[in-house]
């Protein structure tokens, strides 16, 4: 065996830190799952790395999906930050888009990340056409910056109205702030997001500023810990758009890590499914509190323009489109005042967690919190009580789960414990299937034409039920569903997105100016790729315009080839996309161009997914490690239990059966069959 050379993906989640090791020199892979360390995530991170690569000198690249930024925002544990803005507009950040947290019930509230007294106004104004109405008063800006420093601010954001149309005032102001600011934590709104929509730009920019010290500090610490262990390679961070960036970029643009981990998971699924012959796939990531759905059509996952981390905390940056509903292993079941069974959205999370974890205080929260979806799976025999995932618990308390199910669901509905547990799963599955259908409709697809790929620790238990509920004929369970995001880290390309608002009629579009802008963006993107010192197979550049008919407010994304960059070319491309989306054109109405979007992608070499296929696989009968009684559709079934990872390529098993592995359990229902494909996926069919 030659000396190892690792590329490692690390996804730090709320409960577990997942690690995927690819030894390029020896063409081997390994995984590890360790508890996440709250407070300082780098401790769990380093512990996870050591499990597979004790000598950090052997590590060439570490790619990291992180929730440090997201958690800091959710807990409002960010740096003290100030905003300098146009006179008359300091409250834009707090006024949002005039929304409320819930449709029903008027008891919401909102705490902005930057409080009102740290949002200072200066004289300046640019109009929507880009003309300067009032030049900026730099002396006022400096005084404001000093006032923020005196108030103890560690980071600053400069946000001027209409700076997307002309950033001359904002640039002058930010230069003045940077000239006296003691660190690099200064964000300018148009530098980050030169796009029309003041609240979204102000929110994204101020959240970015507030995260700079937090994410920067974390990555710095992590980098030091790695280097101290002898690491001499590259540390890369996954962005919400599913591409990776360098630590240097992440320090400047930490807001781009908003959906880092989940995005990596979807990237992995898209790649795995495409290679396995399923370019159209819907992924479902079932965690402790939520179920995340994403749709991949023709091998590509869609990008959403923005997301809200929490009510009123909008981050506008391209991100993998993921829809979340409150249904997970920790979702709590109960019967409401009308006698109707409800599951979720309340969740027991991982602490105190499901009843079977045995972490609830007897009498106190055991009584208020009902049983969870995981408890139902345990009671029905689908989860091995003696082999809990993640290694934090010794064994699961089946009896306690049953007692709670009977009390909270069985007795009120006059069902026995098994029927009550099955009822909980039916309601939960129906809810998750509903989310899958809705996401498909919103994107104009029929979900029945897609394959379904579960990932996350809990998803594979429900794969057959989801297939039945949605009407999907193929399910694909990846080889390591519990560490999919970590695998995605290893696969992800390096990508830099840019946007610029043009907001003009197509007939007035200055093509030469746009071409120059694209060239400049391309250059900047290629330069950013070059500084990261990563080897790429090739570099791809893409151009997209947000276009619409005059009078509409919803834009559609229109990809345009570089050689079709003309007004006629844009018109043809727009009409093609519009016709496809809405079935008709609106002749006679002027076409407008709102934004230019550019992306420069450095394609990293993909590792051979054949490495995921089982080595020294065995016949199914030799992988049987036992048998369990599983309750399913009203009766008990004897289900053989298989060691999933030992199954050879081509082996086929008919349900009922259970497949166990360290990061998940797969429940194969009667009437379905599962077959191991050449990438180690378990392909389930009806």
């Amino acid at each position, binding site marked *: 065996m030659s000396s190892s050379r690792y590329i490692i993906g690390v996804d730090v989640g709320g409960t577990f830190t997942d690690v995927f090791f690819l030894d390029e020199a020896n063409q081997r892979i390994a995984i590890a799952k360790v508890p996440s360390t709250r407070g300082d995530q780098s401790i769990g991170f380093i512990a996870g790395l050591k499990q597979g690569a004790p000598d950090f000198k052997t590590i060439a690249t570490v790619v990291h999906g992180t929730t440090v930024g997201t958690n800091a925002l959710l807990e409002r544990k960010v740096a003290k930050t100030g905003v300098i803005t146009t006179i008359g507009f300091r*409250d834009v950040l707090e006024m949002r888009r*005039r929304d409320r947290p819930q449709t029903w019930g008027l008891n919401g509230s909102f705490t902005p990340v930057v409080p009102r007294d740290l949002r200072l106004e200066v004289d300046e104004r640019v109009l929507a056409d880009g003309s300067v109405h009032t030049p900026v008063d730099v002396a006022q800006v400096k005084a404001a910056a000093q006032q923020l420093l005196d108030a103890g601010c560690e980071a600053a954001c400069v946000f001027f109205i209409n700076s997307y149309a002309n950033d001359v005032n904002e640039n002058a102001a930010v230069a003045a702030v940077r000239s006296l600011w003691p660190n690099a934590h200064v964000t300018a709104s148009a530098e980050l997001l030169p796009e029309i929509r003041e609240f979204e730009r102000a929110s994204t920019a101020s959240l970015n500023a507030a995260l700079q010290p937090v994410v920067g500090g974390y990555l710095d610490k992590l980098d030091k810990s790695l280097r101290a262990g002898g690491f001499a390679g590259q540390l890369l961070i996954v962005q919400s758009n599913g591409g990776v960036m360098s630590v240097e970029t992440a320090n400047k643009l930490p807001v781009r890590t908003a959906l880092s981990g989940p995005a990596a998971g979807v990237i992995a699924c898209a790649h795995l499914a495409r290679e396995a012959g399923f370019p159209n796939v819907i992924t479902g990531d079932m965690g402790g509190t939520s179920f995340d759905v994403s749709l991949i059509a023709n091998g590509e996952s869609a990008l959403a323009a923005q997301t809200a981390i929490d009510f009123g905390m909008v981050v506008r940056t391209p991100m993998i489109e993921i829809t979340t509903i409150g249904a997970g292993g920790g979702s709590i079941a109960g019967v409401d005042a009308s006698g109707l069974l409800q599951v979720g959205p309340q969740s027991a999370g991982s602490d105190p967690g499901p009843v079977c974890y045995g972490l609830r205080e007897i009498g106190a929260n055991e009584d208020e919190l009902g049983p969870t979806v995981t408890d139902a799976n345990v009671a029905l025999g689908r989860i091995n009580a003696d082999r809990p995932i993640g290694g934090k618990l010794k064994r699961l308390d089946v009896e306690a789960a049953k007692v709670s199910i009977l009390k909270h669901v069985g007795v009120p509905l006059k069902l026995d414990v098994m029927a009550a547990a099955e009822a909980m799963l039916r309601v939960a599955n129906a809810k998750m299937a509903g989310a899958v259908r809705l996401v498909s409709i919103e994107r104009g697809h029929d979900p029945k034409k897609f394959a379904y790929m579960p990932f996350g620790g809990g998803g594979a238990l429900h794969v057959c039920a989801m297939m039945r509920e949605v009407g999907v004929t193929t399910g694909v369970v990846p080889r390591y569903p519990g560490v999919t995001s970590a695998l995605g880290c290893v696969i992800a390309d390096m990508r830099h997105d840019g946007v610029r608002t043009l907001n003009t009629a197509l007939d007035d579009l200055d093509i030469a100016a746009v071409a120059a802008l694209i060239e400049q963006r391309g250059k900047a993107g290629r330069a950013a790729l070059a500084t990261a010192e990563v080897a790429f197979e090739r570099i791809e550049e893409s151009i997209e315009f947000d276009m619409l008919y005059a009078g509409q407010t919803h834009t559609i994304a229109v990809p345009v080839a570089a050689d079709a960059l003309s007004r006629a070319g844009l018109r043809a491309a727009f009409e093609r996309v519009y016709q496809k989306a809405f079935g008709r054109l609106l002749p006679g109405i002027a076409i407008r161009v709102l934004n230019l979007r550019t992306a420069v992608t450095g394609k990293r070499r993909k590792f051979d997914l054949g490495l995921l296929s089982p080595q020294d696989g065995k016949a199914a009968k030799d992988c049987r490690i036992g048998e369990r009684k599983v309750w399913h559709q009203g009766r008990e079934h004897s289900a053989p239990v298989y060691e999933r990872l030992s199954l050879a390529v081509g082996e086929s098993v008919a349900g009922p059966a259970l497949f166990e592995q360290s990061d998940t359990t797969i429940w194969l229902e009667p009437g379905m069959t599962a077959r191991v494909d050449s990438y180690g996926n378990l392909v389930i069919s009806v």
Partner: protein
Amino acid sequence: MIDAVTLAVLNGRLEQIADEMDATLYRSAFNPIIAEAHDASHGLYDALSGETLVQGKSGLPIFVGAMAFAVKAVIDRSPNGFKDGDVFIFNDPYEGGTHLNDFKLVRPFFRNGKLFCHLASVGHWHDVGGNVPGNYNPVATECWQEAMLIPPVKLYDGGEYRPDILAILQANSRLPNSVLGDLNGQVAALELGMRRLNDLLDEYGDATVLEALAELRKRAVKLMRANIATLPDGNYSFEDYLDNDGIVDEPLLIAVDIEKKGETMRLDFSRTSPACAGPVNIARSTAVASIYVALKHIFPAVPANSGVLEPIEIIIPESSLISVGKPKPVGGYTETILRIIDVMFGALAQAAPERVNGMAYGTINALSLAGYRTDEKRKGQRWVMFSFFGGGHGGHPQGDGLNHGNAPISTATIPPLEILEAAYPVRFTQWALRPDSGGAGKHRGGLGAVYEIELLEQSADAFIFGERGKFPPQGVLGGGEAALNVFSYENGGEWKQPPAVSKMVGIKLKQGERVRLETPGGGGYGPASQRDPAAQANDLRLGYLTK
């Protein structure tokens, strides 16, 4: 009898059909009021009574109660029954609720040759004729000055499309393309609903689904009864006023007397003012819908199902301002239903202090600025900027009210000012929270806003349709009242205010002149004497309060 589990599953599956219909329309609608503000709704309604069986979660709150009336209107006008493939369309607000912009489509759903239920779709169309673009005419005295009035007619007759109906609708709109786009979206939503409901019936069987629908209605009744039972028995009254009707400058009383006994409630609106000349009248169906909205804010878990209203008796005299018929103008219905919700909150605060909040800002402030372009390139082009504005929410049991929220009847967001400035010849000179506008209280009301807009073109006409200019949003349980709504405009170097405070047409603006909206905050919750001194100091530090 249907088992509890199938019932729970079908509950979600049925609701999802409505949600998917919503999503279909949002995705394909042309007009931003539907596409962005989601001013639309879909559902399933009883074959014979038109009562709401199921409605989606994503539709506009106020439609949840109103749609049953629309379906009922179609049933009443079809004594000879329906043909499979019929689709009705109309906007008559006296029968179908709300206002003339809301076009309702009703499709009888047949199963094995028999009427099973109705599917319906409603959406707010951008422009439907009348005197004012966008149809918010503050000085209308008849419905025809607001918009065209279409009774239930067949858009499809036994599956056969009638293009003449579309031609009539398009000919009566300033935005015929928008009419076409929205109508197509609504038809597509109904088609999707048909497919989904057929799939569901194939999967579970017609009898099971019918049983589930009946059972879900029973459960809704039971749930509402259980909720009402948690309130102490007694009589609770509350009154509030509208500034005026835009024609006659006299306050209009909205009053409710609630008698709560056991598991039932009687809501008596008899003391409410009689019908008025201007457009703040509403139809009875709209009043009932707004009562439903108030109850659902107080008891968020109750479903969108007619059973919710069964334990509630509603008394509204026919002569009332909240029970008018044709041709009384109803364009400003939003203002009146906001006041009905306010008095419901005010009355029930006495019974359920832990569930109710101070009143929200209580007016949508519809502002229109319009004129013609004078620059070389666009000379003579007409422009109309039409928008609604936000205000504060009331203090509530958990804390201070939300600053700058949307109206309780809606979930619409406000357009970005940069989008408005890019589209129209205006410059915002202020877009800010309005200090001291929230009612004092143990939990302070949220702040309203100040929006100040300067005209960049040579001249423009402005009109405003608002409320709360004379009677501020009130607090509950001893909480203080919020600031009044103030509208001002510049004229010849002077700031002026409308004679009828919150409503005015024909304001002439010249280049450089401004209009200013100062919107109310929310009412306070509980007495100000109980406010945490630290919270008070924080308000002063942040400038939410100036004194």
